[in-house]
């Protein structure tokens, strides 16, 4: 009987029910899209923000003291080194998944045309296996995406080639395709210039080659002088600032919280734990802004989701109320015949819930499409669909339907059979 009555409503008020389903579908689709984008946005924004480069530099302990004291980097390059073998350890720290890229540097002065120039060996697109068995591509190319390259990026196999900064290129009259010879102490090396790059910073005066070529030239096999790390971090707060000054000053509980939160200071601390005799320093402004931007974007999306859901709840409020109004005679009759308020509410809510399920399913499907459109237009890549988004959207849709039915339910309860049944 209950089922027959429900079916009856759907045939009689099909248009209204479809409109309710459509309104719910609109809200659900936006919510689905936003939730999925939000869950995936960490990766997306991260990929975007990597273009801003490293946010942590790791250098040998002694070197960092020197450079801190004298504000010079150049003199230290020859004195202190890290082991190249320590690099995979970066991916063993607690927050290893937040380390999205890193690259080692081996820096030193070389002679070119009888004047001094800085030569840097690094990874460009290095493939490595981490201790946890994960395979990983990392290197400078991904971290310096804003570099303006004339020619082609080096690869890790181009041991006989180099990239020259625009400053050095102009000074020595070098163009892509030229061959240059550099000297270091007794040894010398000949590189073909594969590209000239423009960064707008100090690196414009440098020459870059592969890590292997630099180690050979400097006679420093297996050694590096610093590492640049790009890590995804949580914005600093009072706790992380205290911790950055002195982690030992925290209480055990605070320390635990700090250690298990992706603050840049916590990540630095963990890097120092993992790599012996190193000093990890945050390049603070960049690290802060990455986390802050991410949080702002997520907040924005939560707001959009909330607004979409509120909007659709308000939208159906009117529709559900109108549908109940239209049926006031029928409802009054049911009450007169002996239906309790709760039974009539159950009947109406069941209809709305069925409609909401229909709208929710349609909205979810549309939302997944919308997420991909957002992914493509905003991030130029597809959005990974998060499985939890389905139950989450289902719960949200049912809440919307419930909230949207509140005015109608209040009307239902107030509806007096005598008034409806005697009116002509």
């Amino acid at each position, binding site marked *: 009987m209950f089922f027959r*009555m429900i079916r009856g409503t759907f*045939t*009689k008020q099909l248009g209204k029910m479809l409109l309710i389903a459509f309104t719910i579908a609109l809200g659900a689709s936006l919510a689905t899209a936003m939730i999925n984008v939000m869950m995936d946005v960490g990766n997306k924004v991260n990929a975007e923000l990597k273009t801003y480069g490293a946010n942590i530099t790791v250098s040998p302990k002694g070197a960092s003291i020197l450079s801190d004291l004298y504000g010079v980097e150049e003199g230290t390059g020859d004195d202190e080194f890290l082991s190249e073998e320590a690099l995979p350890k970066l991916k063993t720290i607690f927050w290893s998944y937040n380390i999205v890229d890193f690259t080692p540097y081996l820096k030193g002065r070389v002679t070119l045309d009888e004047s001094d120039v800085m030569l840097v060996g690094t990874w460009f697109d290095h493939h490595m296996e981490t201790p946890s068995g994960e395979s990983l591509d990392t290197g400078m190319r991904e971290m310096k995406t804003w570099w303006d390259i004339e020619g082609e990026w080096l690869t890790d196999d181009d041991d006989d080639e180099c990239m020259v900064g625009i400053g050095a290129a102009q000074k020595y009259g070098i163009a892509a395709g030229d061959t240059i010879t550099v000297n270091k102490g007794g040894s010398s090396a000949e590189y073909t210039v594969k590209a000239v790059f423009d960064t707008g910073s100090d690196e414009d005066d440098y020459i870059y080659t592969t890590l292997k070529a630099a180690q050979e030239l400097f006679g420093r096999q297996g050694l590096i002088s610093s590492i640049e790390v790009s890590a995804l971090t949580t914005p600093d707060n009072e706790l992380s600032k205290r911790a950055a000054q002195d982690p030992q000053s925290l209480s055990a509980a605070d320390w635990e919280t700090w250690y298990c939160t992706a603050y840049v200071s916590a990540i630095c601390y963990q890097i120092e734990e993992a790599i012996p005799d190193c000093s990890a320093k945050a390049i603070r402004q960049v690290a802060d802004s990455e986390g802050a931007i991410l949080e702002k974007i997520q907040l924005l999306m939560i707001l959009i989701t909330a607004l979409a859901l509120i909007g659709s709840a308000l939208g159906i409020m009117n529709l559900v109320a109108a549908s109940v109004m239209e049926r006031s005679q029928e409802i009054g009759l049911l009450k007169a015949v*002996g239906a309790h308020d709760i039974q009539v509410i159950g009947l109406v809510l069941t209809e709305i819930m069925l409609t909401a399920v229909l709208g929710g399913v349609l909205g979810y499907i549309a939302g997944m499409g919308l997420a991909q459109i957002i992914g493509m237009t905003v991030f130029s890549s597809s959005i990974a669909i998060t499985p939890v988004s389905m139950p989450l959207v289902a719960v949200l849709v049912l809440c919307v339907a419930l909230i949207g039915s509140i005015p109608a339910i209040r009307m239902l309860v107030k509806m007096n059979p005598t008034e409806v049944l005697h009116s002509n």
Partner: protein
Amino acid sequence: MADKSKSVTAQDNEDILVLEGVSKIYGELKALNNVDLKVKKGEWVAIMGPSGSGKSTMMNIIGGMDKASEGRVILDGMDITKESAKSLTNIRRDKIGLIFQQFHMVNYLTAVENVMVAQYYHSMPDEEEALQALDRVGLKERAKHYPSQLSGGEQQRVCIARALINYPKILLADEPTGNLDETNENVVVEIFRQLHNEGSTIIVVTHDPEVAAVAERTIVLEHGRITKNIINHNDYSKPINLRDYEGLSDEMLLGKG
């Protein structure tokens, strides 16, 4: 279901309905003004009176759809003026059959389904029994028809079948024939006669003097007060033909007495 209401039963065993000093006050207006009324089990009572005299108000209060401002209403031994809205719904469901001037049917349900709705909220829908009820009002053939496919008279007969389906203690009909032509009016009154012979208690509000005259007793309401109580002497052993009834004359209804 306090013991107090039970004690009321003991003294008036015969009366299915007792109104004691019932008033209904809307601001300045006394729609019902200190009404006393007793209806015996199995009685057939008609209520007449000018428009606005409080007939529907009284029916709504008896039917538990409205609350009296003052006084007591004792239905089947229970003082319903003290009951909550929820238990009034139960009382209505279990003890009262309602018929209105408008033929209120759920228009997306068939005739038999409309009868079954009342069963559904009472206990269990039973199609067999619903069909029997339709048979009683002569509509078995039309059981699968929708309201839009039924005439006004037929719809009202479905409503009567629905009002009867749960064996109510009392049948309340507010102008059941108000929207019907003479033929259908006669059909409805004839159904009432049969119900009366089977022992049903019937209270019917009407503007029609003939329909009023067919009842055992006619009560006249004016300005919320009962002004007349007329006993009619009718023979209920054979089918009723309304044409044979004179109808209560205006003098009888309005004259001093």
